[in-house]
Each structure stands twice: as C-alpha cells, then as structure tokens.
C-alpha cells in the first residue's frame, strides 16, 4: 500500500513526482491525500520512477485542475487516468468512459471556481508603504485554487502591490515579486469608499423592466454575495423592480422639453433634382448625377446593398470603361473597380500603357447584386430588367462624359451599351456601336480571367485582354 501525501502549496510538482513513480501501480493500491488533512498509517516508500513514461498532449491540461480539488479525489482520479493511459492511449478522447467523464466533470467545476475567483474577487485600497499603490482582497474559494489563480492577478495588476487572503493561503505581490504562504486567516472587516460608487453603478445599470432573478443567481450564486459590496443592493432592487416599471408605464408620455421646441430645425436634405441645373434640357453634370443616383430605387437592388457605386474619373475623359456591377468590396468602399477584379484591371491596363486616371470607369449596374451564403456575399449576375433599369444612368454618364471610345468589359456591359449581350467571345476584339452611335471596343471582364482555373489558360487570356486594351490609343487616333 502506498500513501502519498501532497503539500498545500507546490501541489502540482509533488503530484507529478509521485504519479510518475506510481504509474504502474494499480489505483486500488494507493491512498492519495493532503499533507495537512489525513495522516497515512501504512505507507510504503515510493518506487523509482520509470524513465520512459509519456502521456498524450491533452493529459496535462485535463489533470492540472484536478489537483486543486479539495477532497483529494482529484489526485486519485488523475493517477487512475495516467495508469490506464499506459495500456489505452486513446482513452482521453472517449468522453463516454466513466473515469474520463468524471475527470471532465470535476475539471469543469474547478475551472468554474477559478473563473469565479477571477470575476468576483474585490480589492480594497490599503495604506501603501512605498510609491506603488496597495490593495487587499478576501476571497473564499471552494477548492484549493490559490496557486492556479495567482498568475492571472500578476498579469492584470502589474503596476500595484496587492495581497489576496483566503482562509488557508495568503498571496502577496510586492514590487513585482510573488509570494504564497499557507496560513489560516479570518475574514477581515474592511471598506473602500469606491464601493459606494460601484454600487451606484450596479443599481443604475440594472433594468427593472427585465427582472430575471434566476438568471442572475445561476451565474452569481448567493454564496458569493457576502464578499461582493454591490450585492447588498440586490434585495431592494428586486423588491422595487415591478413598481418602478409600472410607474414608468402609468406615467405615460410627457410633453416635449421646452428647450427642444426652440432648437433650430435641421436643414432639409438637398432636393433630389436641384433647380440650379446649368441647362434644363442638356445633360446634367457628373456631380449632379452622382448626387441624384444615391436615392435611386428604379430596381429592387438598392435595398440590400450598402450604397450606390457611381462611375468615377475625369469629366473630360476620352475613354469610358464599362464593367458589370460593383462587387463586395466596391459596395463597401463606394468606388468602382477597387476589388480583386479592379486590381487586375489596373495591372493589365498599366502593362498596356493605359492610365486609369485618364479614363472614366463605371459599371452597367450601380448596385451590388448578391446572395447571402452563410457569412459570405456571393456575386450574382444582374437580370435584364435590372440592367435596363440602370441603363438610364449609364446613358446620362455617356452624355455627360461624351467619350471618344467606350470599352465594354463582359457580356452585361456589352448588353447595356449595344442592346445585345450574346456571343461575347466571338465578338471580343471588334469595334461596335452604342445605341447612340459611339464606337465600343468589345472585350472580356477581368473577373472572367480570375475565374479560369487553369494557370496556362489564364495567362493566355490575360495576354489577350492586354492586347485588347493596348489597341485603345490607335482607336482614339483613328
């Protein structure tokens, strides 16, 4: 019979040493216990530890909390797992095993105790001997978790001196040095003036119309209340809650505060169609269009989108580039061609000797069309009706910019500009006419290149796209 007795502090290394020596011994032949609690009567000296003892990765994490268990049952359970692991390596993943389930249950209870100590411990300021401010706290944990919790407070309250006193252990942190002493203490009577302010906060953040006392007590059981300064307010808050709510409801609406009636009315938003348009029958200029398009509800796409994405570029641009519709990033940024396809376009355009800053870039459809898939927004091709609804804006842009050449990227743009979108790959590279007679260079949309899975095909198509764009200066000169 072996009877290892573990110390109140330094428990974990002591258990590890004993458990290594006893790994091969049947759990029934060991009587585990605490040094201070129960003396051992018939104890054999522990054997030497084997040199080749290994444990799975998950083992230390599961066992560490068990060693804080107050009754000493945790030691035995931790050892039983170690012993059985030698023959059954996969044991820990089987939550249905009764030892594993029991260990998980106790570990969970200890972790909760640790968590509640982090949460419900309250410091009070005390006189400081040195330049650092000093605080003290009293806490009554269920289990022997002082060692397990000390580091949390070291990491959190690094710039002050503090002392945490429990019935069995005093933890002192002074000038950056931590010290634990196992000594019996009694609950001190102490106050801190801040406790009144804290209770004020606690009472006012409570919403009496939502009284749920059971929910509170499930998370903050009554056993903690006597060491929580704010808990003294709880009975009155509960007792007055229903009356407070009824009072609010019965009081009913009040007259508006007089000063609020005197405050200046907020300026009306800009009218949708400003009457300062330079020429009533001419084309509105781009800033006017950009302002008007914001309120557009010509098709249902405006509802789920963040914002309208209008074209941008110099009003005197000679080239107008038309894509399909804004994507996820354009919808968020409010600017066209800033997402992955836009970046690819910028790269290829630069390689083709085209400066995006000289072009007016826009889309056939001004709102992002998508379907929600879990957390992602997946691009959807706009319907003909949506392209047609937005065509009014594209027409206004064409009239305002009056470009010498339009570039249609992809079938949707081609459809919007020429009225026919079919057969894009056969028509690409050609120059067609818009409905109002402007030359349109037909090419693919850069997102088509991004979707090609085969790197070779992608390189070939990107090169073809570059050649299309490189023709622009010649077409302008013609």
């Amino acid at each position, binding site marked *: 019979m072996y009877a290892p007795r573990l110390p109140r502090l330094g428990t974990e290394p002591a258990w590890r040493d004993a458990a290594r020596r006893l790994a091969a011994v049947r759990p029934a032949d060991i009587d585990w216990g605490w040094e201070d609690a129960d003396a051992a009567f018939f104890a054999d000296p522990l054997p030497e530890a084997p040199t080749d003892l290994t444990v799975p990765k998950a083992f230390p994490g599961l066992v560490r909390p068990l060693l804080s268990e107050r009754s000493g049952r945790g030691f035995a359970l931790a050892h039983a797992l170690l012993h059985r692991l030698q023959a059954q390596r996969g044991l820990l*993943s089987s*939550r249905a095993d009764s030892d594993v389930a029991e260990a998980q249950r106790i570990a969970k209870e200890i972790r909760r105790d640790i968590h509640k100590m982090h949460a419900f411990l309250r410091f009070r300021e005390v006189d400081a001997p040195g330049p650092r401010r000093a605080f003290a706290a009293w806490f009554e944990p269920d289990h022997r978790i002082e060692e397990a919790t000390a580091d949390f407070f070291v990491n959190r309250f690094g710039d002050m001196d503090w002392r945490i006193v429990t019935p069995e252990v005093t933890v002192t942190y002074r000038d950056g040095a931590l010290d634990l002493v196992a000594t019996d203490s009694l609950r001190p009577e102490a106050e801190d003036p801040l406790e009144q302010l804290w209770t004020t906060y606690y009472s006012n953040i409570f919403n009496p119309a939502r009284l749920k006392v059971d929910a509170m007590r499930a998370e903050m059981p009554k056993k903690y209340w006597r060491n929580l300064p704010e808990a003294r307010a709880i009975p009155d*808050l509960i007792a007055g809650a229903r009356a407070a709510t009824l009072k609010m409801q019965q009081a009913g*609406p009040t007259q508006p505060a007089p000063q609020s009636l005197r405050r200046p009315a907020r300026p009306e938003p800009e009218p949708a169609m400003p009457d300062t348009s330079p020429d009533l029958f001419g084309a509105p200029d781009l800033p006017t269009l950009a302002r008007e398009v914001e309120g557009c509800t010509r098709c249902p796409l405006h509802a789920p989108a963040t914002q309208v994405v209008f074209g941008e570029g110099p009003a005197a641009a000679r080239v107008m580039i038309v894509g399909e519709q804004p994507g996820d990033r354009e919808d968020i940024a409010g600017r066209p061609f800033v997402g992955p396809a836009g970046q690819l376009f910028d790269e290829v355009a630069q390689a083709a000797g085209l400066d995006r800053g000289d072009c007016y870039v826009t889309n056939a459809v001004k709102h992002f069309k998508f379907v929600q898939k879990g957390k992602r927004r997946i691009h959807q091709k706009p319907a003909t009706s949506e392209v047609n609804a937005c065509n009014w804006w594209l027409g206004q842009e064409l009239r305002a910019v009056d470009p010498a050449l339009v570039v249609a990227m992809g079938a949707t743009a081609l459809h919007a500009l020429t009225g026919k979108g079919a057969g894009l790959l056969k028509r690409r590279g050609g120059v067609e006419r818009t409905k109002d007679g402007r030359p349109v260079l037909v090419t693919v949309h850069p997102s088509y290149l991004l979707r090609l899975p085969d790197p070779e095909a992608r390189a070939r198509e990107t090169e073809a796209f570059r050649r299309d764009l490189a023709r622009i200066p010649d077409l302008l000169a013609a």
Partner: protein
Amino acid sequence: MAKMTIQDKLALLSDAAKYDASCASSGTSKRGSRDGTGLGSTTGSGICHAYAPDGRCISLLKILMTNYCVYDCAYCVNRASSNVLRARFTVDEVVWLTTEFYRRNYIEGLFLSSGIIKSSDYTMEEMVRIAEKLRAGGFRGYVHLKTIPEASPELIERAGLVADRLSINVELPTDASVRSLAPEKDPVGIRKAMGKVRLTKEDYAERSFTGRRRAKFAPAGQSTQMIVGADAADDATILGNASRLYGAYGLKRVYYSAFSPIPDSSAVLPLIDPPLMREHRLYQADWLLRFYDFELGEIVTRDAGGMLDLDVDPKLAWALANRDRFPVDVNRAEKAMLLRVPGFGTKIVDRILKARRQGALGLEDIRRMGGRVKAARAFVTAKGHHPSGALDAADLRARFVKPKQMELF
C-alpha cells in the same frame, strides 16, 4: 441647480446607457501588465464581474459621456425632447472611474457611448480623447467605443487604434422604421460607416512589404444592435437583416434588444413589457444561422407568418415540423445532421464524433458527455435506444411546452 457630484453623474449616465445590450469583453488581442509599467490584461473569453437582477452580465463600465443629444429618436430616453436631467462627464472623470473600478477588479474595461452634442465630429473626437488618454496612462484593459456614423473617417481610424471594439447601432430592423422613429438618423449612412470600419480593419490587417502589420485596428471587431418590438417588423425581416449585416460588414455580433419601457416616454411608442422571450428566440435563431448551417427559410416560414415559435426553441420547432428527417442515428449520422438534433450543441456533436470511434454510444454515454438527452431522445437512435412511436406521437410538441404560469397579480 447645485453642482452635480460624480456620483450623481454616474447614476444618470449609467442609467442612460443600460439600453445597450452589449457588455462583451471577449475576442481581443492578448495583453498583460506583468512588466509593471501599466495596468490591465485581456483574456480570450472575457470575464463577467457581476450580474444584475435582470440576469445580464456586467463586464464593462457602460456609460454615456453625456446624455445631452440633438437627435430626437422616439425610443430613446435621451432624445432632445425628453425631460430627463442632463449631465456630462469630463475626460478626467471617465478615466478616473475606469481605472479606479478596474484596480478593484470590478470591471474588464470601458464601454463608452454618448448622446450627440454640437456635431458628430465634435462628439466622436471627445470620446476618442477619453480612450486615448486611458491608453496613454498605461491602461491595457478592454475598451469598446460607440461610433457616431457621420463622424469623419480620420476619427473612426483614431478610435479603432485605441479601442478593442467599435460599434454602430442600426437601431431598428428596417430603413423605414429608422426614418420614422429616428428622423435624424440615416440608415444608408450607418451602413456606410460599418463598411468603412470593415475596410479600415482589412487595410490594417494587411502586412507591409517588410512583413510587419501596421497596428491593431479594433482587434475585437465591430458589433451592432437593433431594437425589437418597437416597430412592426417580423422575425424573418429582423433575422434577414442581421444575416446581411454579418455578411456585408464582418460583424462579430448583432445584438437584439427588446424594447423596454423608459421613463419620460414619447407619445409615439406604447410602453408594453419588453418582449423578452422573443428576444431570446431571436438569439437562438441567430446562433442556428451562424453556427449550425440552417437557412433563414428553414427557421422562419411563411406558414408561421414570419415569426418564431415562442413556446419552443427554433431548432426544436424545425425538428417537429420536419419529423421525416428523423430519427438520426448518433453512431452513424454525419455532422451536419447531428447538429440538427434538438439538445445537441456544437460541442456535444464534436464529442460524439470523437467518442463514437471508440465504440457505439448509448443515451447514457451522451448524457455523460453533456448532451440534453431529454430533448434529444425522441429524435435519435442510439445503442439500446429507438424512439419508435415517440416521433409520431401527436402530443410530442406538447411535451416540450411548459405550462403557462399564472401571473401573481
């Protein structure tokens, strides 16, 4: 009027802040102060330091900088036309309260919101100054700043560099309700601002050519809140709007806040008791959409008028309406179907998948792992268990519905 003490102000400005549901302090970058040069640390999951009798966690000092406001939102106690007493904290007062509360282990940090005074930019800058001063003083706890939608991008950027989380409330489920109940707020502007936060965060996350990150921008992400029960929007609309918000702006959380009576109310909104059960069901449905691969159309159906069932949780409601998909064999079924079993959460499902490799599981094994067997038993087969007739029983639903308790008065 006599000068207000800090206690008067705290009472007023925390009372005004309680309608914001969020009190989370989780998911931010790891920090600590063991080097002795500062105060505070952050943990992965956050800590609730107290619970109020409304059952809600108190993790942060949640206050308004001021409850003066130029807006007149009908549902808000601080609207311009309300007769409440007004107050304003100074920068130093907020910094002092936050650090003194923190030193006593009352809180994880600060959640600062504000009424809008003078202009959006002025208000935002004052709030940012408070957070900057806290950080400059060595404070490493959690900071959550409410963002004013119309504030300039520079101020939002400054806010994100000192705060762990930013939030902008969409306020109400539909644009039309925002326009009618919060006439000065612009729903499009709110969405644009959330987009701005997402883009700025993405920009900061990109590594420079030297492989270094520029700085941490709002490491705990952004969240939002909408009030439930103040307008006529149904649950389908609310959840649809929420999932769009998650998708478009990468939100960490959408909070639903049951509209509850406020003192000094406006004539526009009736002061009913807050629809707490509806709020609870919305959170459950939100979870199913985000972590259980449910589609919106499965949870809220046209048959039910686009509303969630208040008597049973949405997963159970789905299971009851789709009994042909059951029973599910816990020892064979794939993950997606196990996740649809009432009583099985994501953790339990992972444990089942791992444990069943070691041998077939019975109901008792699943109970030991933490599964709610009572809810699941009619919907699963396991070693030694078959629901047989239970699944088809006409009163299956009734077994899960708690009898209504009589009101005491």
